[in-house]
């Protein structure tokens, strides 16, 4: 039995890797993705392109502007003089914010009256706009505090305000680098899509070309056929996992705090589910096109509702329940736990258990269906 599995395993490897371009794609694809995620997928909002519209032009307005331009959050891209320019900048999306100080700002401050400045935000990206508004408020409060202290000093009063002093500390990702969060997730994304797509398309291809008939009439038993067909894709997915981990740790300096063996084990367990689903899709699809579209139909919700880029806690309650049957969700928790938190089985065991149950169920059901189809 073992020999026959190995025979088909070798055939399968040869077939996938015969095309040298396919070999390249299998290696290049994870590398491109990890580089893109490492450099591009960044939701930290720094260096907001800003236009400055100073109609007041007094010492006070310049002090405030200085606080904006010296913060790392705002980058003054344009200095403008008319309202038309303000409209154009925002319409065209050249800047995300326009800081406008109207006449009277300095005069009001000097005479002890309330004063205000305006920040026009491009609300298209609501999330970014909200964060920028927060930054601006903080800068304004600091300026106010400064003015207040100056007033007290000039009156010769020694007064220190009581207050709550916030001391915050981030765990696991001390410098709050988004790359540390995304890159381990890329493993989950690539392992999922690769194992699904390779399995489903390769099997349907044999059906399409007619070579599946040949395999069926060979002395292979169905179970051996299934194992031999699935194993190479599992191996490829594992190698990609290793590749991403290596690049992530060596090039992007992603912390790896947990156990490597645990990562391999988690991936292997998770592969049961994805290979099983790939096998299942191959039994319902009759063309490769259909297989690919079905893979996408399964992959998109799995990916989007896994917590990869969008926190599950923000989703509506009904969808949060739905994510409970999403295998990638558990795999992601395990991966991030291993990379960032360095936690072990004592914390991760429920995730492993769920993945194992899912995997065994899915692969058994798919194998039964596959056997019925070819028998």
């Amino acid at each position: 039995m073992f020999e026959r599995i190995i025979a088909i395993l070798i055939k399968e490897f040869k077939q996938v890797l015969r095309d040298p371009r396919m070999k390249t794609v299998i290696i290049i694809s994870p590398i491109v993705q990890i580089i893109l995620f490492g450099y591009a997928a960044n939701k930290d909002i720094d260096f907001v392109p800003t236009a400055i519209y100073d109609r007041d032009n007094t010492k006070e307005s310049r002090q405030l502007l200085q606080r904006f331009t010296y913060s790392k959050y705002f980058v003054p891209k344009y200095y403008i003089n008319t309202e038309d320019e303000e409209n154009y900048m925002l319409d065209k999306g050249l800047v995300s914010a326009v800081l406008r100080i109207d006449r009277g700002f300095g005069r009001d401050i000097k005479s002890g009256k309330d004063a205000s400045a305006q920040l026009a935000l491009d609300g298209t990206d609501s999330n970014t706009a909200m964060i920028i508004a927060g930054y601006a408020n903080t800068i304004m409060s600091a300026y106010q505090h400064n003015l207040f202290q100056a007033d007290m000093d000039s009156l010769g009063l020694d007064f220190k305000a009581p207050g709550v002093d916030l001391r915050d500390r981030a765990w696991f990702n001390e410098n709050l680098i988004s790359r540390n969060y995304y890159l381990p997730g890329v493993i989950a994304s690539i392992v999922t899509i690769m194992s699904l797509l390779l399995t489903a398309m390769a099997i349907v291809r044999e059906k399409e070309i007619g070579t599946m008939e040949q395999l069926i009439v060979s002395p292979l038993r169905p179970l051996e056929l299934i194992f031999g067909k699935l194993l190479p894709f599992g191996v490829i997915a594992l190698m990609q996992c290793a590749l991403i981990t290596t690049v992530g740790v060596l090039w992007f300096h992603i912390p790896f705090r947990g156990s490597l063996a645990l990562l391999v084990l988690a991936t292997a367990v998770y592969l049961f589910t994805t290979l099983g689903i790939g096998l299942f899709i191959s039994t319902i699809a009759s063309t490769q096109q259909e297989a690919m579209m079905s893979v996408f139909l399964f992959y998109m919700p799995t990916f989007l509702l896994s917590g990869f880029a969008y926190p599950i806690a923000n989703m509506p309650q009904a969808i949060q329940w739905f994510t409970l049957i999403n295998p990638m969700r558990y795999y992601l928790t395990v991966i991030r736990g291993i990379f960032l938190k360095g936690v072990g089985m004592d914390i991760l065991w429920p995730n492993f258990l769920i993945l194992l149950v899912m995997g065994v169920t899915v692969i058994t059901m798919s194998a039964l269906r596959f056997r019925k189809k070819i028998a």
Partner: protein
Amino acid sequence: MNFKRILAVSNKEFIQIRRDPRSLGLAIVIPILLLLIFGYGLSLDIDRVQTVIWNQDASSGLARDFLLNFKNSKYFKIVKYTDNYRDIQHMIDSGEALMALILPKDFSHYLESGKEAPLQLLVDGSDSNTATIAMGYVRSVVANYNVNLLADTLARRGFRPARSLEMRSRVWFNMGLNSRWFIVPGVIAMIIMIIAALLTSICVAREWERGTMEQLISTPVKAPELIIGKFLPYFAIGFIDLFVGVLMSRFLFGVPFRGNYLLLIFLSGLFLTGALSQGILISTAARTQLLASQLATLTTFIPTMLLSGFIYPIFNMPQVVQGVTYFVPARYYIIILRGLFLKGNGMEVMWDEALFLLIFAFAMLSLAIIKFKKKVF
């Protein structure tokens, strides 16, 4: 170029698509599913941050008043009050809580004696974006509390409250800061890219794989006719998807459409032409469906997800990557879609993006035809 021959090829393609109704169905179902997930399921707005609190100064009214600010805020959801550090550690490790607030034993004592009371905030930084935003919320609660405390203290000493400076933020285009308005137009671009490039790349590769391409080549059909004929039906599918996308955005998700519909159709046509040609180019180069699908994912889907400004702001990327985004056509299309939906922009504002799309469409179509000719002859 002969119009009749183009029609003959697209007619054949239509028949082939009709014979495979499941693929056609998926080409409509996948976009609807994506729009539903993005529109309903995914929110970039962060609220109900799961918080665990350890109030060591529990007997003090001042500390309880301070915590009320968190309890009454929709941004925080207090999942547990605890009295030990182990609980906090476990809850953050296992992800049950995103942050922990720790009030020291002498919290109220500090404040009453006019000093600064330390407040400890521990955040799970794994998801740095969520962590940053959550920390920002806490900061603003604390700043607010401090300002009120200062005003109270001053008033008690007989001073008039300090003058206040205000930052008046005015949000344009999306006054309600609804993240759905931001995401949904981007999803339309992503859908068109996926459907157009993936579907065509695989359908042309199939003809190569099965050998029917040879048959087509041996007919009097010329390369440009063949390519245009092949992509006409997919052009139609792309427009159906666009139509479904716009309808769902307007009526299901309530995203406003402030621009011109004719402009939307015209510019979408350009984008679609480019994307379809890119699909044909890929499949001519790949020749097998498996490779074509991989190449299409790599060159269309992933850049559209990551480098188009769909989710991740381009201005935050490193300079080199920002340079690369200029070659991602979805970047321009997304700017155009958001301009049309939210800003009501016209050609006078978006002419350069439109020009880029025109270049993209023209370049891809020519490349597809040239490459195809080379492969054949």
